[in-house]
């Protein structure tokens, strides 16, 4: 069985203790883990869902900018983090897996390992109204 890099493993262990919803993706944008705090927006636990491809994520959440206008794929914080290897932040609106409106601040951080290894990204979500 393929094993995740230690940086991703430790990130998951850490995220598991946080109250902030966290996604962890691989370099291709596949969602390889989300923590319990993210279960409400995901509508499912990670144990039940397993990994998700990026297309499924986009389809599930119907993401727009704060004004309700569509966001170009390459302007999504996660996509910026994965393609430029730099952090990105944005205020977005979306719908949870259950259809509830979400008003979120999103921060995506690239996970860069030693030896120039691009390992994926971590995305954190905050309620924009908080």
């Amino acid at each position: 069985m393929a094993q995740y890099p230690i940086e991703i493993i430790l990130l998951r262990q850490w995220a598991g203790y946080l109250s902030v919803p966290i996604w962890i993706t691989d370099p291709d944008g596949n969602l390889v883990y989300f923590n319990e705090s993210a279960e409400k927006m995901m509508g499912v636990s990670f144990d039940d869902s397993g990994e998700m491809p990026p297309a499924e994520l986009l389809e599930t959440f119907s993401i727009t900018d704060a004004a309700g206008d569509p966001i170009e794929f390459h302007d999504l914080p996660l996509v910026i983090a994965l393609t430029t290897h730099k952090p990105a932040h944005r205020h977005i609106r979306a719908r949870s897996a259950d259809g509830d409106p979400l008003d979120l601040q999103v921060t995506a951080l690239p996970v860069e390992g030693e030896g120039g290894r691009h390992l994926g990204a971590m995305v954190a979500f905050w309620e924009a109204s908080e």
Partner: protein
Amino acid sequence: MRVTFWGTRGSLARSGPSTVRYGGDTAAVEVQADDGSTLFLDAGSGISRAKPPTNGRVDVLLTHLHMDHIQGLGFCKPLFDPALESHIWGPSSTTMALDERLGRYLSPPLFPVRLRDLPRAKVHDLAPTTIEIGPFRIVVDLICHPGPTLGYRIEDEAGGSIAYLPDHEPALGTRRFPIAPAWTSGHALAEGVDVLIHDAQYTDAEYQERVGWGHSAFAQTVAFAQQAGVKTLVPFHHDPDHSDDFLDHMFEEAIVGPLQMVAGRQDITIEV
């Protein structure tokens, strides 16, 4: 290949009547192929007793730079033999090259001999990769331990395999252990190997007081080895405060199922 344990103690060398059977020297393991090709895994105090290889080359593979894994470098006779081409391999860092970091120890006032005084030594920074040295194929990966720390999987041409993870805390941050193999540090290195040399520094009770120190309880080590489908486990990196009698008792109580176990004792040799 033959695996010889020149040092099995962790953290601090401990000589005396209570460490006669398991040994008091710190981590140093020699792996020798049938053609004489030789790897030294870590350079704790035990490496001071290692003999020069006969094939004209010596390779020292460091897992990390904690003192118990490098303090024997200045006493490693093969590295001072001008007839031998020597290579020191170890973890890369984002801040300093390996030779600079080793030079902090191998230089006055901490040590009278400088790294550059080794006659034919080349130093190699290692990130996760696969390298070949003589008949050995070596898979290198980062594992869970404070600071950049490597684990090694070594395979020979005859199909033998060992994994060396002397300082490793795969249970860190888990609510239960083991968890899924894909999410377990070191699993890919250890999967299916003939011999796993693995950190087993603590009892369960000791581990609870030392979470995050980078080491494993023996029970965690057994669980890790079983999940990885290892044939023979060598518990290693014994706590300096654990006497021979204490270790006898700790290992006797283990329930290892089909897993074979050979306790890591100084000066033993295992054929793989």
